[in-house]
């Protein structure tokens, strides 16, 4: 991407600068063990990692939400950070639109909120209570809330997890459009390797509490699964995640289970 400030850029330019980050919830062992991470302004980074590998922990550290958690390290982030939480975290006592515009101090806050709701496919639901939304609708409302505030850094924890394929593509398009316009740095947690490759400038894999793998994606703007480079990258990332040959697990018959996949 044009805005990428060059590799191994000096720290001064970085939007996010994480140095030697340690975090642990108990004495048994750390979740983050000396993690280093740098994100340039406007850079879109996808974060992959096994369930429980510390992705949310990292995001919370970047968002400054882990005051009580033991640890050391240096975290530098921009002032305007927006977070999409793993749970969609809508205030249950506020209607959807009020949730979206909460704390938004623009004069046309409500219009912008309505527009954001329309963009995530929730037009007409602005007066609904959060509990009246389906799981995916809640996730989209939370997304709308993050997007209306033009952050310098967007931290999104599996924002598309509960969305079907079509809605997900629409949200991808929306997110990319907004990134194009406002150029925030983005750190997006996802479990979908394809999604990571399609959306991001760089994909990092978290494992053992450090960034185990850091891959710049240079597939151009049109990324197709049909592209063999796409497939290679995909296979590489999946193998980083421990999957040798995805979606090819044998269907076990009683008594003969796939040892490899079950291990």
């Amino acid at each position, binding site marked *: 991407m044009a805005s990428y400030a060059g590799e191994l850029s000096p720290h001064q330019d970085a939007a996010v600068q994480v140095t030697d980050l340690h975090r642990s919830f108990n004495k048994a062992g750390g979740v983050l063990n000396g993690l280093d991470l740098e994100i340039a302004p406007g850079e879109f980074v996808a974060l992959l990692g096994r369930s429980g590998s510390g992705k949310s922990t990292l995001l919370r550290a970047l968002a400054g*939400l882990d005051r009580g958690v033991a640890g050391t390290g240096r975290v530098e982030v921009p002032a305007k950070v927006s977070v999409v939480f793993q749970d969609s975290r809508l205030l249950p*006592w506020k209607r959807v639109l009020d949730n979206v515009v909460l704390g938004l101090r623009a004069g046309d806050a409500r219009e912008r909120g309505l527009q954001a709701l329309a963009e995530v496919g929730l037009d007409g639901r602005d007066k609904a209570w959060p*509990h009246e939304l389906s799981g995916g609708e809640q996730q989209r409302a939370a997304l709308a809330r993050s997007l209306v505030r033009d952050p310098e850094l967007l931290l999104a924890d599996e924002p598309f997890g509960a969305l079907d394929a079509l809605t997900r593509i629409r949200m991808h398009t929306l997110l990319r459009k907004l990134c194009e316009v406002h150029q925030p740095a983005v750190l997006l947690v996802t479990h979908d390797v394809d999604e990571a490759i399609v959306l991001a400038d760089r994909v990092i894999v978290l494992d053992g509490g450090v960034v185990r793998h850091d891959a710049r994606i240079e597939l151009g703007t049109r990324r197709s699964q049909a592209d063999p480079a796409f497939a290679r990258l995909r296979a590489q990332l999946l193998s980083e995640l421990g999957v040798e040959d995805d979606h090819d697990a044998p269907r076990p018959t009683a008594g003969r289970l796939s040892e490899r996949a079950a291990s």
Partner: protein
Amino acid sequence: MTTLTAPSRRAISSETEDVRPSRRRLGPGQPIRFGGLVGIVALLGAWIVGSATGLLDPRTLTEPWTVVATAETLIENGRLQESLVTSGVRAALGLGLGVAVGLVLALVSGLSRVGETLIDGPIQVKRSIPTLALIPLLILWLGIGEPMKIITIALAVFVPIYIHTHNGLRTIEGRYAELAETLGVTRWEFIRHVVLPGAMPGFLLGLRFAVTSSLLALVVVEVINATSGIGHMITLASSYGQTDIIVVGLVVYALLGVTADAVVRFIERKALSWRRTLAS
């Protein structure tokens, strides 16, 4: 390889057939309309029957009809209305003052640990001490006029408001405070959009107690230099052993208390309609 089955099958069923899996209901289920009155009517019935059959000695608990007759007399000579108005004004002023003070203190103490260290202890001390025992001090500081009475009521009222609001506020889920922090809201927006609505259930429960406290405090304050009021009426009647008037007073108390409670619970239902609880 793939068989498509058109979603066509339509059972021959009457238009309004509504068969759902029968699952043991564990929650309390739908509210019964006017159910709250059943118990009260039963109580009233027990009183009437008890009195009519002589099971309840009228010397202990006046018969309902005597109470009605006494109430009529009190209404005719205007004492009941006058007392109700006097007490109503006192209770309302005390309630308003107490709620405002309790709310402010709860916010200060709930949102800042420094505020809490200063405010919370003395309030616990205050609520451990019988209001009756505070009266001499209050008379000393405030005299024996109306201000003393209203402030005494306010002192009885602010405690449940404070404790419940403080507790409600402190038990707001931490994740909502986190959210507010990431949204960059101001402190006042945080209070308005997160703290107050989040503490609202607690506050409203406190209000239920506050309303009753304001009424009960009347009995204590209207002993001092009062010439009318429900509390005064009851105290005076008991010093002359006029059981029937006492019971009229208690019935008025019960009516006021139950009504006020029902009003607060109605507000509760409306204001907290966003909740999905066992009750809804």
